[in-house]
């Protein structure tokens, strides 16, 4: 999808706003590098693109800054720093898997630093599927990469913390981060043709992913590969295992990418627009398969997308981002039926299905502001019909479990949110 923003040209190239060219390696990518250096004669990683490990240098940069993090960005500090209690979710008592607090990621551009992610905080519990929604330039993909430590210079994670199973990922040394990637936390990208190595067979790529985190035997690897392929709904997995990516259809390739992500039984999988490039019918198949897969494996999913309808099929909770900030959060059905933030409302209203055929759609005027030229205060104020003078100061995050929002004039406040938080 196109980067529909007014960002200066140079910044556009630096923004991995969805990697159409697959700038980053698959979840096992860093693992691929490792295995290669051991002596296998494989080309390392996807034909075009940077490999994950350089992201480690960004992590390093933050390490040297040490405890000099600014205490969160000026706007939108979290209300109580009580952690998970703030982000209560449907599954009461479920283990807290991922804790993101005040995450901020910056990119150096010709026109100054651009904060692609600014003070984002959320939790993911075991077995949960959350949807991270936003348009181009909202920072949703960059959030995903920041969690995995895949931000390369001139970008860096400027502030905040990301805790996986209690372990702090921001500032973690490269080697430790590599051990985690593909093992405890994995990623599925948008374009499977760039994520899969075109010159390696599927079986080889899966083996590399497995060998990066263990020493299984050839037998065992073949078994696990076949099982993984069957689990993602690939018919005739024996034949597919020995195929090259270009011999498979788009849907099949994405299933292979998903299978690789799930290979080492991660606790959390981050999916960046995995079905956007696929046909409607294949997308539906993959959505349903993911749902079963996640339920069976007990894996948590962070599903990043710009498509509200698609994300809502799977996600029990929605997080809406705009200009790098998290502006709304809540149970999916609640957020869609009674959005509190005017942007969310505008997004829903501009869907073609919401207007009578032939009538003009409700459109949000203007376009997303450039990240290097954000208005002071609320980033949405110039496009908002409800903006007043108070919007010149940045709205704080209001927390009223199970919902949070960041707005001075929230909408739909009348109807109480059901305690159940129905999906």
């Amino acid at each position, binding site marked *: *999808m196109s980067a529909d923003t007014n960002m200066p040209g140079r910044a556009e190239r630096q923004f991995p706003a969805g990697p159409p060219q697959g700038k980053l390696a698959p979840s096992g990518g860093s693992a691929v590098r490792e295995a290669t250096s051991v002596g296998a004669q494989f080309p390392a990683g996807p034909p075009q693109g940077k490999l994950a490990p350089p992201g480690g240098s960004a992590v390093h940069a933050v390490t040297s800054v040490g405890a000099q993090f600014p205490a969160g960005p000026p706007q939108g500090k979290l209300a109580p720093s009580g952690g998970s209690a703030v982000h209560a979710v449907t599954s009461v008592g479920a283990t807290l898997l991922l804790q993101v607090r005040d995450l901020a990621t910056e990119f150096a551009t010709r026109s100054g630093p651009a904060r692609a992610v600014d003070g984002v905080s959320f939790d993911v519990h075991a077995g949960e599927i959350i949807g991270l929604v936003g348009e181009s330039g909202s920072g949703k993909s960059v959030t995903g990469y920041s969690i995995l430590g895949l931000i390369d210079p001139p970008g860096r994670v400027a502030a905040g913390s990301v805790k996986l199973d209690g372990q702090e990922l921001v500032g973690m040394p490269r080697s430790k981060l590599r051990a985690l990637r593909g093992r405890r936390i994995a990623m599925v990208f948008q374009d499977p043709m760039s994520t899969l190595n075109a010159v390696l067979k599927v079986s080889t790529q899966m083996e590399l992913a497995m060998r990066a985190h263990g020493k299984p035997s050839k037998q065992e690897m073949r078994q696990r590969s076949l099982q993984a392929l069957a689990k993602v709904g690939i018919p005739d997995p024996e034949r597919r295992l020995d195929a090259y990516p270009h011999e498979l259809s788009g849907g099949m390739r994405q299933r292979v990418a998903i299978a690789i992500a799930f290979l080492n039984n991660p606790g959390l999988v981050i999916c960046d627009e995995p079905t956007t490039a696929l046909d409607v019918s294949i997308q539906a198949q993959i959505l349903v398969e993911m749902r079963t897969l996640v339920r069976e494996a007990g894996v948590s999913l962070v599903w990043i997308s710009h498509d509200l309808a698609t994300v809502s099929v799977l996600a029990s909770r929605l997080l809406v981002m705009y200009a790098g900030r998290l502006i709304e959060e809540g149970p999916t059905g609640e957020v869609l039926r009674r959005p509190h933030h005017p942007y969310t409302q505008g997004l*829903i209203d*501009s869907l*073609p299905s919401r207007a009578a055929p032939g009538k003009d759609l409700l459109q949000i005027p203007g376009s997303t502001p450039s990240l290097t030229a954000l208005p002071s205060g609320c980033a949405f104020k110039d496009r908002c019909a409800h903006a007043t003078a108070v919007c010149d100061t940045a709205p704080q995050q209001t927390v009223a479990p199970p919902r949070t929002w960041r707005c001075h004039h929230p909408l739909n406040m009348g109807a109480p949110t059901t305690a159940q938080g129905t999906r």
Partner: protein
Amino acid sequence: MSSQTHFIGLNTITRRFASIPPFSERLAKRITGQKASTTVVHAVEDVSLSVAKGETLGLVGESGCGKSTLGRVAAGILAPTMGQAHIDGAAVMRDGRKNTTRVQMVFQDPFASLNPRMRIGDTIAEGPIAHGLVKKADAAADVARWLKAVGLDAEAAQRFPHQFSGGQRQRVAIARALAMRPDALVCDEPVASLDVSIQAQIINLFLQLRRDLNLTMLFISHDLSVVRHVSDRVAIMYLGRIVELGATEDIFLSPHHPYTRALLDSAPRLAADGAPVQDIRPISGELPSPINPPSGCAFHQRCAFAQPRCSQELPVLRSLGEPREVACHFPLAQQGEPL
């Protein structure tokens, strides 16, 4: 056949793509006595469609269904292997070259469809000047007029495509098409690569232009909700053939072809109150390849209602007694299926 009801007329269009292996390979095969293999892609097979003046026909389908190819034939970019495309009674192409400026095309990728090294003002003015629609001296004013019509400032004419956002570039592409003063537009997935909020703006722009200029449109998209919103009639395509054709609301509320029904059921969507529809039912199986289409009905391998006849006999597009046509041996309406 009035040229008003058949303003855009596509008659028995077939378009096949043959990939001929290179000379060296043919020579090698000739020497060893083998037959050189030519793969033929059946992109469009025997499609007849018409669009009335001022009407918008939506063309829906997934990859490989041939909708883009059909659109290009209608716009005069591709010559059909068989059949002919007409606009207002006149043939669109002659001798393999486009013969008219009355039908113009808007492409999917707004960045790729603009020459990155030309200022957009020059891009917009080039066609009209070359065809004598506008004199060079009046070009700037003409460009300003079309930029205004699509919601951009006149001074944008001096800028290059990379200085615009995706939505703005698509507006430029529309302005370029309109500058040729066409009677009809073929739009190939014009909003597919845009964000939702920008998509809404561009859709509104299309609706407004259609009203103001009385345009006839062939609107190609894979997005059912977008097509539903802008089209008067819809044609559903599968593997190069039309499987269902009729008024938009009729089709969406009561689809007669199993594929249409399955497509509607499998698309993620929001209900009227905004709640997400989570019970989506995917269609089983893979999209067949247009190189090797299945025998009989192309959909039979994935169809829940398939019978032996479906794999043997190709169903013909026929009317069911209403202004609706379906290409199916056992259309849903006749099966008593609750619609």
